[in-house]
Each structure stands twice: as structure tokens, then as C-alpha cells.
């Protein structure tokens, strides 16, 4: 009888440990199917009307977002660090997600917060560096502000004593859904894994 009780106690202890480990793993990984790094808006917000141009000089408006998911980063071509790094991370995520069997990946869109220097021609050369599926958008400050204000995107010119300037700007990646609505965002700092894990979950959720 003591032998039976001994095995019963050992069995209970093992079961308790296994159960605890299972729940710890679940707690660590989070529920499947829910983005872990992106913030998804409870209610998507429609974009306002605006009129910009893409790298070929063609109109780029709210309607340009319709029909396909988009990942939007506001930056500028003279930005040496975070702008090219973020675009490259998105481009790498695109390659990996498509290689993993997804049929499509959102458009990657750089919208310039430095339209003074970023002409469509400059944008064309720049976004081409990051491979296919990357669009460059620029235009007037007035039209740009229509979009940035609606999305809560900050940007501000910052000069130095040498006469050159930089632009402080929001570092988030905005997710726009197929209905041209602000759907989700990724906060900085970014890395490829965050995009690879969460983007298919976001785009498959609707």
C-alpha cells in the first residue's frame, strides 16, 4: 500500500510540474493568433483625403491604399540611420514572409517628411535600393500634414550650425488596411522578427 501511495505522490508531483510548465510556456508565448508587438486599434480609423505623388510622379492619394495592406514609415532620404534600417528590416521581413508561404505582403511605403529635398526622382532611386514592393511618396508640406495630423505623426525640421538640417520624426511603422484605414502600428525599436511574426497575424485577422 505504501508503494502505491509513493507512486501516486510521484505521479501527482510530475503532473503538477508538467502543468505548471505548460501554463508558463503559454504565458510566455501569449495566445496564438494575437500580434505580440504591434498595437492593433480597437476601431480602425479612416484616412483623410490628401494628395501626394509617388516616385514616378503619379498621384498618391487615400485611394492608393485601397485594395491592399500597406506598411507606412515616415522618414527622409538624408536620414543615415533609422530610416534605411527600418526600410531594410521591412524588406527582409517581406522576403521571409513570402518565403514562408504567404501569398502576399503589404506594400512598404516611405512617405518623406523632407519634401524640400526628396523629389520624386530622389525617392525613385532611394526606394529602389530596398527591392520590389517599396513605394516612395512625397509632395507638399500642406498635403503631407493632412495625413500626418490624422495619424498623429510628428515631424519637425532641425537645423545645425553648419547650415545643414535633419528632420526629427515619428519612428513608428503604421499599418493601413485594404479599406484605407489606420489599423495598427509598430513602435520602435524595430526588428525583423517583430514584423515577420505579427504582420501575417494582422493581415489575416480581417
Amino acid at each position, binding site marked *: 500500500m505504501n508503494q502505491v501511495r509513493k507512486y501516486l505522490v510521484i505521479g501527482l508531483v510530475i503532473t503538477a510540474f508538467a502543468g505548471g510548465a505548460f501554463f508558463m510556456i503559454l504565458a510566455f508565448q501569449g495566445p496564438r493568433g494575437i500580434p505580440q508587438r504591434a498595437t492593433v486599434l480597437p476601431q480602425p480609423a479612416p484616412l483623410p483625403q490628401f494628395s501626394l505623388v509617388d516616385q514616378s510622379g503619379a498621384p498618391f492619394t487615400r485611394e492608393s491604399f485601397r485594395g491592399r495592406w500597406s506598411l507606412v514609415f515616415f522618414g527622409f*532620404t*538624408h*536620414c*543615415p*540611420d*533609422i530610416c*534605411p*534600417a527600418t526600410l*531594410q*528590416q521591412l*524588406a*527582409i521581413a517581406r522576403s*521571409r514572409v513570402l518565403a514562408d508561404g504567404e501569398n502576399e505582403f503589404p506594400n512598404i511605403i516611405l512617405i518623406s517628411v523632407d519634401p524640400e529635398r526628396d523629389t520624386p*526622382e*530622389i525617392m525613385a*532611386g*532611394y526606394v*529602389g*535600393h*530596398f527591392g520590389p514592393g517599396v513605394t516612395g511618396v512625397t509632395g507638399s508640406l500642406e498635403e503631407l500634414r493632412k495625413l500626418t495630423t490624422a495619424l498623429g505623426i*510628428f515631424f519637425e525640421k*532641425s537645423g*545645425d550650425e553648419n547650415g545643414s538640417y*535633419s528632420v*526629427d*520624426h*515619428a*519612428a*513608428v511603422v503604421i499599418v493601413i488596411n485594404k479599406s484605407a484605414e489606420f489599423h495598427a502600428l509598430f*513602435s*520602435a*525599436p524595430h*526588428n*525583423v*522578427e517583430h514584423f515577420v511574426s505579427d504582420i501575417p497575424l494582422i493581415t489575416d485577422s480581417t
Partner: protein
Amino acid sequence: MGVLAVACSAPEGPPLTISNALVLEAPPGTQMSVGYMTLDNNSDQPIVIDRVTSPQFARIEMHETVIENDVARMASFPSLVIDPHSSVVFETGGKHLMMSGPVNQTEAGLPVTIEIHYDANGLLIIATTVRSREHVLDDSR
């Protein structure tokens, strides 16, 4: 990646060493490259980095990307103090070398030399190559 580092003012061994030095290619039309590295102060005294130069670039500035409340701001700093037996890392999203005005095209694979001027008359020279962002930023590799 081949990296050659030469300290020119170190009678008893290099007080300043560098590792993981890399220069990323400039996207077309920008003439703006970026450099990353780790600087180690191996000495018992603080080391002041006065400036950074390169024969391949007209101008190099030490910058730092600071992200606060999801806003990225870029601040330049004219010099940098490295505490004794400490390291300073230049990396994506943090301190970096803003390298502008390339003498020639900065394509991946081309050689580039970085000259670290420190403590008024110290000089550390690094020979490395320009690399593509794709290989450096893929954190799965």
C-alpha cells in the same frame, strides 16, 4: 570581414581598440553612409574621441539617434569620452557615424578607411569594407 586597426600613439600597447567596424552602403541619390563599431578603452585613463575622418568621405560626424515616445531625433556630438576600461557601441538606432560626401561611389565590397582621432594626438586607423544593409540588419542570421 577584414579589419585592420593600427594605433599610432601607444608605446606600451593600444589604449584604444576597435571591433565590429562596418560601413553600410549609401542608398542611391543620398550620398549618406553610416558607420557602426565598438570602441574599447583599455587604459586606466579616460579617452576623448576628438573627431573621425576618412579619405573616402568629405565629412564624418558622430551622431546619436534618440527615440523617445516613438519620435526619433538625431543629435550630433563633437567629441566623446570613453571611461577607463569601458566600451562605447555605435549601432543601429543609437550612436553612429554619419558619413557624407563620398569621394567615390560607396558600393558594397569597396574598401574604406576610418581614422579615429583621440586625446589630441592619438590616431587609430581602421581598414574595412563597405557592406550591404541586407546582410547586416537581418537579425535572423
